[in-house]
Structure formats: C-alpha cells, structure tokens
C-alpha cells in the first residue's frame, strides 16, 4: 500500500479534517470560528456519516472546547480540537491546565489576526503568543504540511517522554482555504504510525480512586513545572525521530527546519508557515541575479530548535526574518528574539533583521520581499547587526 501515492485536491482545513479522520480520535470538542470552520464542519460530516466513531462535542465556546478536551484526555481518550484567533485566546487559560495536567491533546490552529479591529485573515500572532504555555508548537506551509502535521502531532504529544499537548498552525485563508495538491496516506499507514492502544497513564475513570487537579502550593508547584520543562526538552528529540519515521512512511522529507539553497549562501531568509514559500520563490529570483542567498524554514517553534538555528545560520552574513505576527514594544519580532537568544554569544553568526509584515492577511509581494532583502544587506554593510522594521504598510 505504501508504494502507491494518492493525490487529492484539498484546502488546508480539509486536509486537517481528512488527516484527523484517519487518526479517528475518541473525542473531538470544537466550536466554529472562521477560518477554522471547515475543519469542524468536515469532521462533523465524518461523524454523522459514520466514517469515524469519534464522540463529537458541539460545545458552546472555545473555553468549553478546551475544558472538555482536558476532561476527555484525563479519562484516557485520544482528543483533537481546532480553533483560531479569538477562540485560541479564549482557550488560553485552559491551555495551561492541559499542559500542566499532561494531556496530549492535539489542536489545529487556523492562524488568524486578533481583534480589534476585527479581521478574519491570516496572521500567526495567535499561536506565537501561546509559546510559554508548555505546548509543542509547529507551523505548516501548505495543505500538505497541514495534513502531515495533524498526524505527526499525535505521535509527538502522546510519546511517553513528552505527554504534552501539541498545536500546529496554518495561516487563515492563505492555507486554510486554498485548494492545493495533497498526497494522502492510507488508514493502514496511519495505524502503523500511531499506536492503536491508548496511552498508559493515571486516568480519571471509575476504577481508580484518584484525585486530579489538586491544589499545589509552594512546596511542590515548582517541581511539577520543572517536569514540564524536561518533557519539553524531550520533545525535540521525539519530534526529530517522529519526523524521520514519517518521512520514511510518506516518502516526503520532513525536518524540524527546512534548508533551501543555504550551503553556499552569504544571506538568508528565515520564516515559517506560508511565508516560507514566498521566501523560497524570492531566493530563486535573487539567485538568478547572482545573489548568494538561501532560505531557512522553521517548522518546530516549541521547543525552539536553537542548535539548528545556529548550525544553519553560522557563516551567513545577514539574516532577513519575515514574521507574520504583531508584537508591540518588543526588542524584535517574536521569532527574531528567539533566534537572537539562540545565537547570542556564538561566533560567526549573522546580523539579524526582523520584519513585521502581512498582518491581518496583508500580502507582502515578492518585489517587496526583495526590497526588504536589500535593506538587510544595507544594514549589515554599515555595521548594524540587529534591526526590526514594519514593512508593507501605508506610511
């Protein structure tokens, strides 16, 4: 079976729903929000047509969605949900409960800008600001990556060395609603990849008189939190291995960071999500003009792949970081500050030039990206090694 590649045209949201269908989680609790809606709708179709035997809980809010997921996960179930923007913000309180109680819930995020002003389009701030919630966090560039990461996330989250929830994001409309070519997997392939048995853990179930969610004071709180950090550290290796295994299974190369034309490059783009596709296109255009430039794409955002950053960027003169997220009064863009921390004190590292762009679904065109690239080079030439600019807006 694994030899035959099935290709289907799907939007990003559909790809997520179809991949989740193969996993057939026990419980899906979701509340609709644009641009995640198609995930919830498709999955409801599967449930009502008997294509899966999941319990679908039509909750009355995202807060209840995540709360029900925690209840279900602690009962021992495999759990999936999806949301976007304001919905993720409403879940925020319970995101910490989910990770603190070590619930391997998988959450698909249709990355969308925050209100106000209200806007329904693509922007990754919603997911990036959850960086400290102790969730494994991935980004996908395309419907294909959305499909793959749906399945992969269960593998990482449920790994006994991790046991943390995982979220992955695709940008609203740009990926969620764009029809793309997706290579699918067979049910058998997914069953081989994700264990049929449910995780072994203390469960909230009739046979075990156990207390979950107790009040933990100064005497134990920090130890429990420290264990979360260790799990997060473990998640790096687990993700690496899972991606390796997935690559063999699917025949598509999957890595924590993807390097494009970086071997001999003097300059680099760093990006994540859909922007990474544009960066690669610009690399091709610039290469044609004789520029020695490459691109680095981040797929795993938490745990942050610091060593990969260093290895990929060492020897580069200037890095142009394209960040589709808003942050205010920060020393750099959200991803830029992480990269800066990863490289700090190391030798032979590039100057870092962060660009806040594409907010609320705004398009940063290829010529604009070229301009931004020239700006980074200019900064580097005059010896400025860290800059952050907003680009692609009316001044």
């Amino acid at each position, binding site marked *: 079976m694994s030899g035959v590649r099935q290709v289907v045209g799907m939007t990003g949201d559909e790809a997520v729903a179809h991949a989740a269908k193969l996993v057939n989680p*026990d*419980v899906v*609790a979701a509340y609709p929000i644009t641009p995640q809606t198609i995930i919830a709708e498709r999955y409801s179709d599967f449930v009502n047509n008997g294509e899966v*035997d*999941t*319990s679908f*809980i*039509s*909750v*009355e*809010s995202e*807060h*209840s*969605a995540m*709360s*029900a*997921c*925690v*209840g*279900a*996960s*602690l*009962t*021992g*179930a495999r*759990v999936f949900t999806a949301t976007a923007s304001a919905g993720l913000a409403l879940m925020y*309180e*319970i995101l910490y*409960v989910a990770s603190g*109680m070590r619930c391997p819930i998988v959450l698909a995020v249709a990355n969308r800008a925050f209100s106000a002003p209200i806007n329904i389009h693509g922007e990754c701030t919603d997911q990036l600001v959850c960086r400290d919630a102790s969730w494994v966090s991935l980004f996908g560039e395309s419907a294909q990556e959305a499909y793959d990461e749906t399945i992969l996330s269960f593998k990482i989250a449920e790994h006994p060395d991790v046991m943390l929830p995982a979220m992955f994001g695709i940008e609203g409309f740009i990926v969620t609603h764009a029809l793309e070519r997706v290579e699918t997997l067979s049910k058998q392939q997914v069953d081989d990849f994700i264990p049929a048995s*449910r995780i072994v853990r203390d469960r*909230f*179930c*009739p*046979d*075990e*008189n*156990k*207390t*979950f*969610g*107790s*009040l*933990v*004071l*100064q*005497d*134990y709180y920090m130890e429990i939190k420290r264990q979360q950090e260790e799990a997060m550290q473990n998640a790096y290796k687990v993700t690496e291995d899972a991606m390796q295994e997935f690559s063999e299974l699917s025949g598509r190369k999957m890595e924590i960071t993807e390097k494009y034309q970086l071997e001999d490059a003097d300059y680099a783009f760093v990006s994540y999500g859909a922007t990474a596709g544009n960066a690669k296109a610009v690399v091709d255009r610039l290469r044609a003009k004789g520029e020695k430039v490459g691109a680095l794409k981040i797929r795993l955002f938490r745990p942050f792949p610091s060593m990969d950053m260093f290895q990929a960027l060492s020897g580069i003169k200037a890095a142009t970081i394209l960040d589709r997220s808003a942050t205010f009064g920060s020393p750099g863009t959200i991803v830029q500050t992480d990269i800066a921390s990863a490289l700090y004190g190391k030798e032979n590292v590039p100057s870092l030039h962060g660009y806040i762009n594409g907010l609320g679904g705004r398009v940063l065109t290829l010529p604009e990206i070229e301009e931004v690239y020239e700006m980074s080079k200019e900064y580097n030439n005059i010896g400025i090694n860290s800059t952050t600019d907003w680009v692609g807006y009316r001044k």
Partner: protein
Amino acid sequence: MAIVLPKVSVKDLQEWSKLGEVFTSGHRLCAGCGAGTMARQVTLAAKVLGDPMMIVNATGCLEVASTVYPYTAWDVPWLHNAFENAAATASGAIEAMKSMQRKGLMRERNVNMIVFGGDGGTYDIGLQSLSGAIERGHDFLYVCYNNGAYMNCLSLDTHIMTKDGLKRVTDIQLGELVYAFDQNTNDLVLKECSGIFDNGIKEVYELKTLHHSIKTTINHPFLTVQRSRKNYENKLIWKTLEKLKPGDEIIVLKDMNDGKRYSFKEIKISKKGDYKVHKINEIKLPEESNPDLMEFLGLYVGDGWTRPHKAETGFSFPENSEARSRLVFLSKKLFDLEPSTAHQNDVYLYSVNLARFVDSLDFGKGAKNKIIPSWVFTLPYEEKEAFVKGLMQSDGYSIGKSNRYVSASYELLKTLRLLLQTINYRVGKIHQQTKKKGTFVVYRQLLEDSTYGYVCFSKKKKPNINKYLSQAKQRDFLADNEYFSSEKIVSIEFIKEEPTIDLRVEDEHNFIADGIVVHNTGIQRSSGTPQGAATTTTPPGTVIPGKIEWQKPLAEIMAAHDIPTFTASPAYPRDLMAKVQAALKHDGPAFMLVDSPCNLGQRYAPDMSMEIAKLAVKTCFFPLFYTYKEDWVLTGISSRLAKNPDRKLPIEDYLKPQGRFRHLFKPEWKKKLIEIQDTVDEKWERLVTKATCV
C-alpha cells in the same frame, strides 16, 4: 418520566452511614462549614446506589480545602479543571467514556457523574458552561452549593490588642472589644469582635518591619501608606500581603492609652485553723496592682517559681546581686514578709497564700513557658515600666543605651516585645540561639543544652516633630499621631503551612494584630449573594445597605432547560439524599441547588450552620422543592409550611443571627427589612400557587 423521590428513613441513614465516607476527614474547610456536610450527604446518597461515581469539582472552597497536594479527602475518582468549566469538563469525561466503550477500550457500565460548583462558579462565571452541557444532554447531576459569596487569615500564635489587654487570637471571644484604627480620625478606638473563623491550614508568611513582625496568609489586608509626589495627596489604603513588598510602609501601633490599675481576682486564702493548717506565715496581699508589686512580679517572671504545696515562692538570685537586695526590700514592703536568704544562690519566700496568689496571675509555669498575661497590657505606664525594670534586674543587661533581655521562653519574649511597644520602646527582632550545657547565661550555669532567645530594646526619643512635621512625615506618615506610626517593611517570607484563624470587627473592619493594623478577611458578592447582605464588595454603606439585587433565580433558570431541578439543604439530610438519588437515577442532566451555610462569610458562630440552614427554609427564604417540566413539588418542611402558612417564620429570624445582615437592623434600614420580607412572601406565594405538596 416524572420524578419519584425515594423514601429515606432515619434507619436508612443509620445503615448508610456504615458504608464509609467518600468525602473523608482531614479536609481543611473552616470548622462548622456547611459545604462539608453537603458533600458528605451527596456522595453518601450516591454511594448507596451502587454504581461507581465520579466527581468533577469547580475551583472553590470545597476543592481548595480538600486536595492540598499531596493529600486528598476524596475516596472516589475526582477531577478539578478550573473555576468556570466544571460542566464542560464533565462533558469531556462522559463523551470520552462513551467513545472508548464503543471502541472496546473501556468496560461498559453506568457511572454516576456528579459535578460540584460554588455560587461563583455556577451563578456567575460558569453559567454558560453549565447551560451548554445541559443543552447537550450530558448525563450528570450538577450540585451548586451556594454559600452566598466569593470567600477567601492570621496564624494561631498571633496576639491581638483587646480592651482586656493582649490576647492570643485563639482566646478572643465573640463580642469582645478589640482595639482598631479609626480611619476617619486616625485614632485608636475600641470595636466589637463580631466573628471568629477557623480558616484551616493555610500557607503562612512572616512580614517584618524593623520593630514588628506578624505571621499571616497571603491574602490578608494591611493598612499601607500610598505616597504620591505631592505630600498632601498621601493617603492610607488597604493592600493584601501579596501586593506588598519590602520598602512599602504599613501602619503599626506606637503607643497605647495609659491604662489603669488592675484589680486582682479573689483567691482562696488559707487561715490558721483551716483543715491541717497549724502554722502560717500571715502576709498582706494586694487588691490592686502597683509599681512595687509589678517590679516584684518582673523579678518573678525573670527568675522565679512557685511550689504551693511547699508554700514556696523561690527566686534564683545569687548573693550580693542587685536583684536579691531589691527582692528582699520589696517583699518586706509589699507583703510584710522576711525572705529566707540562707542559700547561696536562691531566695525563698514561705507563704502558701503568696504562692497561690502568684499562681493566679497567669504568668505560666516553668522557665520555658513563662508569658506576660493580658492584664499586664492594661496597666498604667509606670506599672508597666516597673515590671520591665524587675525583668531587667533578673535576666537583662544593658549595653550603652540598649537593653537586652534573655529568656528560654519564646512566648515571653514575644509578649515582652509587644508590651514594650505599648510604652514607646523600639524593639528589635527575637534572636534565638542554642547554648551548650555548662555555659553561663546571665549569672547561671546551664544544666543541659538549652535554646535561649533575646530581644534588644531602647527608649524612643520624642523629637519635636511639630517644627519639622512635613519632613517627619516623610519618614513616619503618622508622625503627629499619638498611637500609630508607619514603618517600612523589611522582608516578607514564606514560613510554612499552619492552622490559621481570622477575626471580624464591626465598623472599622480592622484590628491590631502583633502591633500591626490589619483588615479582616475578604468576602466578595456573587449573583448568589442575598439582597441586603454585606460583603467586602457590597459593604453596608450609609446610602446603600449591602447588596442591592435579589439572587439570580438559578433553580428556575436551570428548570427552564427542561431538566429535573431540585433545591435542598444539608439541614434536612433525608430530603437532600432522596433528591440526589432521584436525580442520579434520571437519565440525563439534573440540577440541584443547595443552600450551603458558611460561618465565615455569613458571619455566625461555627456551631450554628445547621440552625441557620433550617431558618432559611422555615422563613421560606430558601424553599425545598423539585420541578421537572410542568411539575412543581414542595417537599419536607416547605410542603408543611404551604399547608400551615401560620407556621412560616418572619425573615428576620433568618437574617438576625447572621452578621452579614446586622446593619439591616439599624432603625434607618427598617424599610429595607420590610422590602425583603415582601419579596420573600411574593416569591413564596408564586411558588405555592404553582406547586403541589408531598
């Protein structure tokens, strides 16, 4: 299917109680709290049904007090997620079990799911989650235990300034007058203590200023100075400990009013001719305190003991010491008694009546247990000074202007520190050290390894503050105040978890604990708080008497979801337990509103919970009933009251014993009382009209 309440007899209760507790002892709810009674009744009723039960618990008293990690009071599967989402969490667990059972991943069986939420977690922040889960038809019994507010203390070794002197917080009685800070006049005033609450084991922190220290919980409020750049805008505001940091200034007691002589209690006096009394050293005993006597008692507290069976009051003052000569002088002057000074190290006074008298003064027995009793704090200045002089002659010494007093009794040092603060001394912290056997501690050689402590103190100078008032106020915000001053916090440190207690003081809502002005506990209104009730967010003001709104009609709201809805009271266990069983037997969601008496927030004595709960029912303020679709059925006492309306009690009977309604009984709020009675009557009539009786 209509609801059928099973009959529960007293005999049933006796049998069931043998099944073993589900909500076990060792939880840390306040003593007397009705929530514990409620939880035991609900879980026991469920246990009787035989099917396994699972509990989801919203954040609140019941949850926090029952599962302090690594302990739990729950002998069933129990899950807490957050404050507002217990119903949604139960939804998740129910669906997870269904799904896994479908897939053969879990054994099929019926489970009784019970969800507990308080009024905050149900009436307010969790209402949406509850309504959603009920709309989805999730099969659980949601029990809302309404204690009428958001509830939230002092360590047991805290000392409180009262009219009768300094007392341990554990010895304060209801109605007793305690000192408080008048926030209008900045004066020291006496106010009545209207509530005492055992708050269970809580994390306790120690706050230290240069001269004071107090142990308290993190949410205890202190009176602090808020300084703005312009001096005239500085003001005093209450802040909880968690919002305080070193450098912040808090208000402390500097000086007390001059006290008055203390009249001693009568004691049994032996006379010659009494049974077995052939010979007696006749002495004259004082009726009131005086400076000489206080100096004598200072000597006694420092180095004395009594053995009444030997008629002995002894002092270990070596020959030629100043203390010995003072003692001899004072004994003759006070009691007309010649001490026996033959022994090289000890002095003995032989009089059975003297020994008895000294014993009656509550100074504690044995060097390690000595203490300064409360009456000493009520004395005039010069008597307190004389007492300190006596103490210093025994176990004290001076280094320059600083005095140091050494003792093996920590309590003595603690109370001495507080006493000194009432007579304008600066005192340092208590230092403790362990000394090896054989070392000399003030004149004497130790017979074994001992732990000793000492405090240093010196007289405060009275500067002429009026000349430099604004500068002085920079340092001490209340520099011109006779009784209080502000002091900077030096440190705040976590100590350990220990039992705590709290007081409530009328009007001023503050009191003086370990010399520091503190606020009583916080209780914030919820939409389950009754009209007119005082909480810390609906205080009884001069214009608005407590909470304005009537309670949200939660039972009716839930009933409108077309689910079996019950009200019940822990004061009527048979009614409550029958309803729990009927609710659990029903296939689908059910809701139960329980009136949960809370002595802390509702302000009555801890042994009154069930009495208060009964009054809520007997005044028809909280009727017992159940409803499902078109049926409305009054049960228990409520059913009897519907049949015999003349037995219904006036609402005042319910309101009066509760401190939270006390202000309503002032003449100016008489109108309010009538209004509340009218609303109760109107609601009750409406219910009786549509309900049948059992």
